[in-house]
Structures are given as structure tokens and as C-alpha cells.
């Protein structure tokens, strides 16, 4: 069960609206390596996790990603408040505006709407853990790219926090991967997962 807390994980207070920045930052909401995909990936993968530690890592990081979804949305919301028609036209925000006004819609900066094609849940804990490590690196580099494009310190500050969280999550998933590898047969040099083929007979 999930419960909502009326607090952001890290403060978002942006003085100057800037729809041009919202246009690129939206990728970290609904883009290929965004927070919606991250939350959906981990919270759906956790049922295949073979031990409590990895179940807990996926549950707790997946939950944090829901909080990051909210932070990115808060950034977008504040960047697009009180816009004039000329600001919308001049910033190139008009293409988004015509479909969504200033509503928060999970889409990539390059246009496409969020899709579950951005994530996998394989049922194989080793494959999932490798996907998760890659996902954290890809999200980190997207935040790096956003930081290359953004000068406003009010926006950079929460983006830097989110970038650092990707690095911490990468560490935790690395430990999760190690934990799963330790559960494998020591002769399993190639780190594939035999658990699916060696299932205990189903209870009648």
C-alpha cells in the first residue's frame, strides 16, 4: 500500500518561469530514461527478486522514483506559470502548448509520449539488475545534458540533487547484483540465472 506525504524530497522554488527549459526537462518525467519509467520499472520488477534485500532495494528505490516524478513535475509546473502568448511562441513551447496547455504530461523532450517500451521486467533477477544499473547511468547522463543546457541556479539546484540520487541508486543496484551473484552456484562463471529451470515442483 502506498501513502502520500505532502512534502517534496528536495525543495523546488523557481523565481523565473522559462518554458524553453521546461521543453528539455520534461524528458526526465516521461522520456526514455525519465522518472515515470524508473518508478514503473522497479516497482514491477520487484516480484521476481530472489531475496528480501533486493525486494527491499527495488521497493524503496521505486518509491523514491515516485517522489522524483513529483519533483520533476514541480519544476515543470513552476517553469510554465503565468506565460504570455508571445512567451509561448518565442520559446518554442507552442507545440506542447497546443496539445496540453501547461498541463503536466509525461513525454520525451523530442516529442513522443511516455511508453512502457522504455522499460523491461524480464522475470530474471540478473537481467533486471543489469537493466537497472544501465537505467541509472542513462538517467544520470540525461541530467548531465540538462545541466549543460540550463544556467538558472534555481533550476540547477534540484536537478543536481536528482542527478546525485541516480549515482546513489547505481551503487545500491550494484550491491543488489552482487547479492544475487553470491546466491548463484560458484561454478556458474557466466552469471546466468538457473532459478527458472530449477523451480521446486508447484504445490498442489
Amino acid at each position, binding site marked *: *500500500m502506498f501513502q502520500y506525504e505532502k512534502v517534496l524530497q528536495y525543495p523546488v522554488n523557481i523565481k523565473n518561469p522559462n518554458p524553453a527549459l521546461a521543453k528539455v526537462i520534461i524528458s526526465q518525467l516521461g522520456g526514455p530514461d525519465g522518472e515515470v519509467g524508473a518508478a514503473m520499472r522497479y516497482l514491477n520488477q*520487484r*516480484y521476481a527478486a530472489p531475496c*528480501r*534485500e533486493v*525486494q*527491499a532495494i527495488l*521497493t*524503496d528505490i521505486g518509491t523514491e522514483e515516485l517522489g522524483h516524478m513529483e519533483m520533476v513535475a514541480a519544476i515543470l509546473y513552476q517553469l510554465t506559470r503565468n506565460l504570455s502568448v508571445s512567451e509561448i511562441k518565442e520559446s518554442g513551447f507552442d507545440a506542447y502548448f497546443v496539445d496540453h496547455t501547461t498541463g503536466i504530461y509525461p513525454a520525451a523532450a523530442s516529442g513522443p509520449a511516455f511508453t512502457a517500451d522504455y522499460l523491461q521486467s524480464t522475470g530474471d533477477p540478473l537481467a533486471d539488475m543489469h537493466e537497472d544499473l544501465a537505467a541509472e547511468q542513462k538517467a544520470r547522463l540525461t541530467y548531465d545534458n540538462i545541466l549543460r543546457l540550463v544556467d538558472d541556479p534555481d533550476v540547477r539546484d534540484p536537478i543536481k540533487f536528482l542527478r546525485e540520487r541516480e549515482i546513489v541508486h547505481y551503487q545500491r543496484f550494484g550491491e543488489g547484483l552482487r547479492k544475487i551473484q553470491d546466491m548463484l552456484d560458484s561454478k556458474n562463471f557466466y552469471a546466468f540465472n538457473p532459478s527458472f529451470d530449477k523451480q521446486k515442483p508447484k504445490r498442489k
Partner: protein
Amino acid sequence: MENNKQKALRKLMAARFALHDAELYLDSHPDCQEGLRYFRAKREQAEKLRNEYETEFGSLTSRCTKADERWEWVCGAFPWERGES
């Protein structure tokens, strides 16, 4: 047959569900005095049941674990396992 843990959990789940449903109702009826009375009563009941459950069977959130010698969060089963809800 339900064990004691499941029995305690069922009572807590029922109380929490009533509380949650009252929350939804109050979102659209924030001045309803009868709704507010119902919410307060259910909250008291749910909190009592939660305390009893957590004392005996362990914490429902990682934030509330005792955290004295071991991180209990990874000791108990997660609720999607058969027999854990």
C-alpha cells in the same frame, strides 16, 4: 486457517480501508462534521491496531523499524507473498 498475524492484519486492513475511504469522501466534503467525526474515530482505531500489530509482528514501514541490532526491513516477508496479506 488464519494465524494470529493474519487475524491482526485483517483487522488493521479493515480499519485502514475505512479511514482511507473517509479521506476520499472528505476531499470533496471538507466541512462535513459527521464525516470528520467518523474520520477521527477510525483514525484512533487504526492507530491502536497498528501499534498492536507492529509491536507483535514488526514494522509496516522502514521508517518505523526498531533498527537496534539488524535492519528488520529485510527480515520480514513482503506482502505480495502468498499468506502475507
